[in-house]
């Protein structure tokens, strides 16, 4: 109900009092980030692989959507679907399957490299006829279909589309993680050897996790272009990939609720920090220090993962906290 | 010289030692007997400072060493050789021996000590520049013991030194340990599956069962004890 009514809320004087900053645009971006972070969480939180290049996948799909819809006349929604599928295929076949052979740090290096190199590839002169080089690609205005024309403006329409896709894919995600496949992912994260003994086809599931993760990144990327109406080589970069990681680690690895918290975090973090900087000067510049410290704190306190932390009663949790390790310094 | 009193050790939740007490008199060889998982190896690790001790005391030459770091324990004069030998495989024999003397510095005493150690293990002196993983099993065991000797220990802890050695070689090694202990005045605490050989060179022996000492006596009496013989000495 709340999600449906959202675009209209701030039209009401009552909500306008404290919702003025909650623009529909933010809520739409929340839906986009939710998709991306669900994918990221599937990869890291469920299957235990790490990617520092997820923003590059999002960016690639945004570009593909832009090129298909602006230059080849594809309908926007078709272009998004196609880009999502293409990204999934790329993630599965060209990253996921080769990645199976790579241990953690090597995969991290490869994705880190992709992330840094990709904007430069987009700017290559030979690709300019498609990518428009450093200028980026602008999208047209997307309005609602005729019969809704009087009721919704373009922004509200975009909100409904993005939010519906996000909700649908979240439901799909929940079902996936509760299925045999989802349990296989978790088994694999907890122990590859153990998973193998349980009869899980480890390489297949690791690659599959990358594929599904890329599908979410791809759909998110397509919507990113649709919502922003613009994409350039510098729309997303290394720092965004790192923020994706920060978001899911703080939100909670291996949980859908965690991804939702993560998407909220990503949507509002910059406004929240700016607001905070109004009270405590310098906070803006210290932002990355907070985030870095939080990442480390979560990992140090919950070395076995934060998954399920919020679903259990408080008392046993305290014992899980790895507080002892803060004091012992002998190796 | 070494006295363990009521030592408790556990791995996670599972207790591994509950109340082990034993004694190694100066200049003697003492063997720990027991089946797999009885706590022999754990006892060695606990004395060497490789495992945290929950309760009990370890007295070495009048000093409490329970809870000290391995580094300190080595400096006090206790060295260990472990199962699997734990050599620096990619380093040469000489580098391994140099590392053995890490706590001693590499001054004048080093060459002297190196020469002494090599007289016990002449086979090693021909292979000083060889990577240690290229040595045979027997030579690797010699190197492990030699490396421990480089630190000039007064007490040597040995976990399964005969593991993986042919019986003849094992026999030779135990003979070596005995003569070494006599000549250098080094006390030895041995944990050994091939117990008959080990007890043969020992002065004392302790029998461990599920983390407890069930019997402790002179080696002579253990060899005469029918039960011990049939359970642990294989004849």
């Amino acid at each position, binding site marked *: 109900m709340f999600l449906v009514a959202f675009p209209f809320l701030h039209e009401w004087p009552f909500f306008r009092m404290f919702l003025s900053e909650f623009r529909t645009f933010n809520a739409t971006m929340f839906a986009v980030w939710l998709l991306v972070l669900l994918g990221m969480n599937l990869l890291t939180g469920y299957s*235990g692989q790490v990617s520092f290049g997820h923003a590059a996948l999002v960016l690639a799909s945004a570009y593909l959507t832009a090129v298909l819809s602006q230059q080849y006349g594809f309908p926007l929604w078709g272009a998004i679907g196609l880009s999502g599928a293409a990204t999934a295929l790329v993630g599965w076949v060209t990253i996921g399957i080769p990645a199976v052979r790579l241990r953690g740090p090597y995969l991290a*290096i490869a994705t880190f490299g992709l992330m840094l190199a990709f904007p430069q590839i987009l700017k290559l002169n030979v690709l300019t006829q498609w990518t428009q080089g450093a200028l980026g690609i602008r999208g047209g205005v997307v309005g609602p279909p005729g019969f809704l024309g009087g009721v919704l403006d373009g922004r509200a329409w975009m909100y409904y589309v993005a939010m519906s896709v996000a909700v649908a894919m979240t439901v799909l995600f929940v079902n996936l993680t509760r299925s045999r496949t989802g349990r296989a992912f978790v088994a694999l994260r907890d122990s590859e050897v153990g998973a193998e003994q349980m009869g899980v086809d480890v390489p297949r599931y690791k690659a599959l996790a990358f594929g599904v993760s890329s599908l979410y990144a791809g759909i998110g990327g397509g919507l990113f272009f649709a919502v922003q109406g613009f994409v350039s080589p510098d729309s997303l970069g290394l720092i965004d990939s790192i923020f994706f990681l920060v978001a899911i680690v703080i939100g909670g690895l291996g949980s859908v609720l965690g991804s939702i918290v993560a998407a909220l975090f990503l949507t509002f973090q910059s406004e929240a920090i700016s607001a905070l900087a109004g009270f405590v000067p310098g906070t803006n510049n210290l932002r*990355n220090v907070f985030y870095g410290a939080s990442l480390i704190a979560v990992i140090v306190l919950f070395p076995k993962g934060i998954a399920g932390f919020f679903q259990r009663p408080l008392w046993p949790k305290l014992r899980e906290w790895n507080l002892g390790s803060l004091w012992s310094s002998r190796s | 010289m070494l006295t363990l009193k009521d030592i408790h050790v556990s791995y996670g939740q599972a207790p591994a030692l509950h109340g082990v007490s034993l004694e190694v008199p100066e200049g003697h060889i003492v063997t720990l007997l027991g089946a797999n998982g009885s706590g022999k190896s754990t006892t060695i690790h606990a004395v060497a400072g490789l495992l945290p001790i929950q309760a009990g005391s370890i007295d070495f030459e009048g000093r409490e060493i329970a809870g000290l770091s391995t580094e300190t324990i080595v400096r006090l004069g206790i060295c260990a050789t*472990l199962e699997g030998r734990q050599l620096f495989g990619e380093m040469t024999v000489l580098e391994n021996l140099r590392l053995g003397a890490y706590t001693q510095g590499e001054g004048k005493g080093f060459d002297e000590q190196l020469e002494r150690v090599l007289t016990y293990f002449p086979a090693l002196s021909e292979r000083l520049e060889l990577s240690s993983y290229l040595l045979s099993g027997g030579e690797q065991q010699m190197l492990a013991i030699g490396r421990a000797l480089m630190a000039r220990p007064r007490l040597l802890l040995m976990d399964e030194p005969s593991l993986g050695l042919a019986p003849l070689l094992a026999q030779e090694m135990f003979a070596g340990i005995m003569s070494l202990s006599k000549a250098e005045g080094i006390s030895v605490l041995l944990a050994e599956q091939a117990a008959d050989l080990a007890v043969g060179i020992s002065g004392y022996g302790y029998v461990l069962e599920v983390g407890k000492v069930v019997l402790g006596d002179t080696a002579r009496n253990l060899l005469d004890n029918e039960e011990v013989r049939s359970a642990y000495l294989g004849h």
Partner: protein
Amino acid sequence: MDLFLQQLIGGIASGSMFAILALGIVLIYRSTGTLNFAQGQMAMFSMFVAWSAMSTGMGFWPAVLLTLLSALAMGALVEWLIVRRVEGTSDLNSLIVAMGLFLIFDGLALYIWGPLPKSFGPFSFFSGGASCVGGVCIGRLNLGILVVSIVTTALLYLLFQCTRFGLALRATALNRLASRLVGIPVGRMLSTGWGLGTAVGAIAGILAAQSLGLDIRTMFFVVLFALAAAVLGGLDSPVGAVVGGLIIGVVKNLAGTYTPSSVGSIDLAVAFAVIVLVLMVRPNGIFGRPVRMRV
């Protein structure tokens, strides 16, 4: 031909800088198994320390010395305070912690020194006329970088191969349990490994700043080349890091010279391509050991 030789020499010079940054990454990787993605940002932080020291009127070399000492302490402190807590839990955890360090040093530098680039060199050692042999010249900047890199590498080699302390450092990287058995203070060695890696990174940073300037993002891309070098040489091989660095430097320069301008700049893409290629063909690099020999 002269153009080729010219670019080859330039490539070797910038490659030597990648080599020592890669060397720092390898030292840290060998000591605790952490692939330190924060290496670049930690180096950047040290560069700002050097800048601050010099802006108080300190000379270049004293400032460099001070920076190296502070980098040594900083790296050791990071290992002791943070890395040790998650060691041995999982690759995933140590990678996330490395990213946390990345953000912390990135943010601290922004907080302390602000977003504006600083002027940092080239200092007198790195500026002056070119030296020529025949038709081939090497600029003073490249010569300076090359000399500092060679000296750094040589000193590290002496430390690791010819001193007792270096022997113990290597031993700790090879086998922790055995190191404890012979009485090496393993924890202190691991901290030292991080300290050394960070100090070596700081040298690479100071060299990079001579041609690229000093900015929070200066090291972003330099790190990519260093990572490519480390992967190419083998993540656990110091020799590999040096050889890999030189190869990457040369390939980058030649690719830059011989790629038609209609294509555009491709240096980052080349580094990425090298990484992918190595991982496909020989994941352990040229000098890396495929299987650890354990005795």
